[in-house]
């Protein structure tokens, strides 16, 4: 697909080299990844303006682009015609890092100019590879226990250990598993953001868990024992007589594991929901009526 490099830099076709330099510098300051962390749109924009500058700041590339840009699929003819002119000049323009990976140029660019071979005054400098960002979806039970998981990031399989108690939205860094370093520089890091789905029965807030327990009217009034599910098994609870609807109890250390604090847990809060009996028999209705009268 044809890319309008002039439009990307906000320039007309008659722009001078100085105009290109100024426009590029202005946009690079706006969209540089260092100034826009975790902003995918800014990164995409930055790659586009880098590519636009790579072409327009190099007179030879610009000429080829101006001549064949819209008809780029026939650019090979230009190559053949231009062979006698010798090798093309290298770019005079400066190319900013942060998007220094060759693979970040568009198919359009690669078709016209081949792979990027490095340009600019800082091309021999060792650069750290790009940081990768990935998102991992877990359910609440997955996050409850430390476990290992294999991920595929950019075609490579990585086995990571996910500590119990990881929070929704939390990001962990896997050093050295990002993009490859440039000119022998160190690899970037991999950042994994966790997205933890809500559990149908348990709500989590920090390390505490919240749930509701249905209580029949008779147990609520008279007291008794109930069995309740927690995330790591069942517990038996003693219900006090005359328990009110909506009353809460706390089970200490039955909540969520505390991240990277083995053996420590939050609390589990249980809200009682008293269920009023339905489909009463005639006899039961009479008994309730009697009970009602005894109150007045």
């Amino acid at each position: 697909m044809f890319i309008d490099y002039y439009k990307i830099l906000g320039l007309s076709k008659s722009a001078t080299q100085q105009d290109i330099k100024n426009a590029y510098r202005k946009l690079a300051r706006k969209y540089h990844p260092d100034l826009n962390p975790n902003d995918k749109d800014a990164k995409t924009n930055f790659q586009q303006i880098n590519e636009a500058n790579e072409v327009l700041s190099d007179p030879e590339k610009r000429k080829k682009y101006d001549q064949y840009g819209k008809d780029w699929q026939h650019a090979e003819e230009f190559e053949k015609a231009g062979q006698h002119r010798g090798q093309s000049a290298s770019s005079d323009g400066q190319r900013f890092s942060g998007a220094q990976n060759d693979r970040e140029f568009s198919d359009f660019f690669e078709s016209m100019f081949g792979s990027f071979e490095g340009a600019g005054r800082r091309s021999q400098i060792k650069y750290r590879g790009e940081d990768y960002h990935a998102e991992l979806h877990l359910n609440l039970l997955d996050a409850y226990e430390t476990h290992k998981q294999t991920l595929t990031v950019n075609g490579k399989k990585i086995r990571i250990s996910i500590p119990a108690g990881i929070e929704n939205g939390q990001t962990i860094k896997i050093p050295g598993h990002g993009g490859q370093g440039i000119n022998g520089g160190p690899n970037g890091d991999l950042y994994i953001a966790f997205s933890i789905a809500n559990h149908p029965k348990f709500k989590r807030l920090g390390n505490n868990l919240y749930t509701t327990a249905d209580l029949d009217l008779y147990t609520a009034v008279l007291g008794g024992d109930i069995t309740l599910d927690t995330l790591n098994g069942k517990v038996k609870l003693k219900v006090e007589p005359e328990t009110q609807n909506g009353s809460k109890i706390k089970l200490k250390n039955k909540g969520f594991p505390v991240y990277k604090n083995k053996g420590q847990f939050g609390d589990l809060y249980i809200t009682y929901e008293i269920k009023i009996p339905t489909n009463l028999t005639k006899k039961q209705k009479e008994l309730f009526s009697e009970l009602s009268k005894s109150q007045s």
Partner: protein
Amino acid sequence: MENLIPANVFCANHNIEISFISSLQETGLINITYIEEAGYIPESQLQQLEKIVRLYYELDINLEGIETITHLLQRVNLLQEEITVLKNRLRLYEAI
């Protein structure tokens, strides 16, 4: 234990003056460890330092500008973390 990178090696690799590193130390943007008068950069500061080098040499942002940007980026990070916490809370109430 932390790996220390000799400041002169870092400067040679990045084509920058050692005085630039000293300026960063003076403004408090990075901390350098000195051993027998030779400056060393703790590995944990490397990423931040490389970012500063890019901002200074490539985007022509002066040290005052970098200080401001660093401060604002820290604020952005804190706000993003706060948004995550608030979203989690909101999810809890929306689910009830």
